[in-house]
């Protein structure tokens, strides 16, 4: 190799290093609003595309979508928002939005909210930062509940349990009948969090749950120990080996009628059911533990759109957000993704499946709405402490004291760090 080709090679190499940032810079030039999308799965990707096309048709403007793999989007969100973010991007409500608002990485859209129509007070609260300003346009939500197959319940004559005792008795009966009472997978770390949230909200109430996740209550308190204790009582009815199973595999056991129930979010089991069986899918709200709290709280994570602080085309971004807050925008999305529920009360519910209608009822009847464990607390606490702690609990359910002391010690360290 001659010296010249070597040097040329070096220049090419340096170009390869610099290229991604050059490309990134290109993507936010003029010529339409840019949209950072984490909707990398085929169904939502297509559904979002339908919504953006509806906007393009209406406004005669273009939306340029940069889709990133869902997990990668989440992992890189820090650098993404500090680098050259798209004008508008998809993200979550609640604590996970407030965190970035507090860091000054989001644009205040309170002026848009003044003209918004059809959003409930609870939705506004979930779209509001700690400074009282709004940052999110909520788009859809999906409640968590106990899913089951209607036909299985009908054939075996099972009743919908209202209280925890009935719930446990039903699980016992299913086991006798040769079913796995609860399909359960926690390989990804987060699916079991939904069960924890419900046990805690039913036993100790929404306020305690949220205070606990904000770091204001201690994890080694008798209340939290009681939650793990209740859970331990249910574990013999759960599908064994949860830490090696994905939620998809767990939902399939429900679809195959090998399991009787599962605690998941609305989009999850639906995706694993064949189109013919989807009619057979049903849910009931997580049963009551303490009558003082009843079934008041519903876990319903909200996804939506935010405008980055560094948005280039601010007017275009606001116009797009305004459109996305309309019922029509949600309708065009839900036409191809019936696994979620629109947030806007003006959205067309005529086309809803019975399951979607039931989900609307469940959430509108709720006195409190929680987001999800990893959305109601600090993400670093959720991902480096709680995922591991719950998996450890599933392996060794008998050492609750050791477990909660471990969590509390780490919580103090993390919450005091910043």
């Amino acid at each position, binding site marked *: 190799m001659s*010296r010249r080709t*070597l*040097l040329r090679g*070096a220049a090419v190499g340096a170009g390869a290093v610099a290229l991604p940032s050059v490309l990134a810079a290109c993507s936010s030039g003029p010529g339409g609003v840019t949209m950072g999308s984490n909707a990398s799965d085929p169904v939502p990707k297509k559904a979002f595309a339908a919504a953006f096309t509806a906007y393009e048709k209406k406004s005669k403007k273009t939306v340029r979508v940069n889709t990133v793999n869902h997990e990668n989007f*989440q*992992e*890189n*969100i*820090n*650098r993404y928002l*500090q680098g050259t973010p798209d004008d508008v991007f998809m993200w979550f409500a609640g604590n*996970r939005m407030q*965190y970035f608002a507090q*860091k000054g*990485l989001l644009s205040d859209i309170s002026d848009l909210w003044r003209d918004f129509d059809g959003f409930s007070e609870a939705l506004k609260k979930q779209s509001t930062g700690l400074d009282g300003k709004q940052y999110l346009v909520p788009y859809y939500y999906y409640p968590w509940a106990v899913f089951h197959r209607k036909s299985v319940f009908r054939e075996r004559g099972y009743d919908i349990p209202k209280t925890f005792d009935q719930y446990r008795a039903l699980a016992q009966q299913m086991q006798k009948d040769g079913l796995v009472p609860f399909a359960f997978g926690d*390989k*990804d*770390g987060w699916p079991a969090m939904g069960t924890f949230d419900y046990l805690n909200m039913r036993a100790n109430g929404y306020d305690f749950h949220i205070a606990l996740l904000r770091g204001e209550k201690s994890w080694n308190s008798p209340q939290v120990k009681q939650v793990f204790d209740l859970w331990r009582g249910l574990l013999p009815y759960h599908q*064994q*080996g*949860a*830490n*090696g*199973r994905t939620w998809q*595999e767990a939902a399939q*056991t429900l679809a195959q009628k090998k399991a009787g129930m599962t605690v998941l979010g609305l989009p999850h089991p639906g995706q694993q059911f064949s189109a013919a069986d989807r009619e057979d899918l049903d849910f009931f709200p997580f049963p009551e533990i303490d009558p003082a709290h009843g079934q008041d709280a519903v876990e319903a994570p909200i996804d939506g759109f935010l405008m980055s602080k560094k948005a280039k085309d601010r007017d275009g971004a606001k116009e797009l957000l305004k459109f996305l807050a309309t019922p029509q925008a949600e309708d065009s999305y839900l036409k191809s993704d019936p696994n979620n529920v629109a947030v806007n009360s003006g959205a067309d519910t005529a086309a809803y499946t019975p399951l979607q209608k039931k989900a609307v009822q469940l959430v509108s009847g709720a006195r409190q709405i929680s987001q999800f464990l990893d959305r109601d607390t*600090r*993400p*670093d606490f959720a*991902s*480096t402490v709680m*995922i*591991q702690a719950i*998996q*450890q609990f599933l*392996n060794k359910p008998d050492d609750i004291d050791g477990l909660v002391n*471990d969590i509390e*010690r*780490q919580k103090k*360290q*993390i919450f005091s*760090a*910043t």
Partner: protein
Amino acid sequence: MPNLRARRARRPGPRRYTRRDRLVLGVLLGLPILLDLALIWGPTFASVGLSFTTWDGIGDIRWAGLNNYDHLFTGYPQFWPAVRHNLLWLAFLGLLAAPFGLLLAVLIDRGVRFSRFYQSTLYMPVVLSLAVVGFIAQLILSRDQGALNAVLGSKNPTDWLGNPGLNIWMVLLAAGWRHTGYVMILYLAGLKSVDPGLKEAAALDGASARQTFFRVVLPTLRPVNVIVGVITVIESLRAFDIVYAVNKGRNGLELLSVLVTDNIIGEASRIGFGSALAVVLLLVSLGFIVTYLVQELRGERRR
């Protein structure tokens, strides 16, 4: 006399460099040095510095003293298991996979039938990335849908990858599968270069096959042994992709590299704490690097 002068003329004397030469030297030496400083030393020292702070990647960097280290050693349940797993990895690859690779190399070098076939089969996993090996392992070992449990057909399936006492061994087997092939190829190359005369001489002296191997062949393979040792250490310390592919390095598959990633990548990064973990990994690596360098330099002097 003319002879001497001729030799002197050939010796590289004090030579004048032209501007062009200097420019070329400057670019060819300077660029790598700059890159080395910017890409290796810069981040290294930054990590060491950051490990004494708390920083979430967005806001202010605040001094924390030894807090991170204190929390690491006493309050972080994943830390000691990760250290243990890294050491187990080293022991497994170094004491089982690498010697096994040597054994295979010797067998193939003896010229068993179909040796080319064995060679290529055993070498095949080396071209796969460990992440891919991890995906293959999941297809085989998954509890409900894996091939192995289907073949075994037991009523109570074994949770090969979900049971925290079991999964590390399964992953080690998969990683060892690849490492063995890697080591085998290196030794095969080394064995080809062993002078057959040495073996003949040993045979004339009445040495048994075992004696010939351990006293004659293995010592002449010293350079290869060193390389295999270095590769084994590197593979054990940088092990990451396979456990991350299997279950993100949780629930029994913790490794130092995974903990660093867990804490630094993501929404609300604990960059200070993650850096402290990285510094621990750096110190462990330095231990091996320094030992290696000392050995090499001593060997150089002896030669």
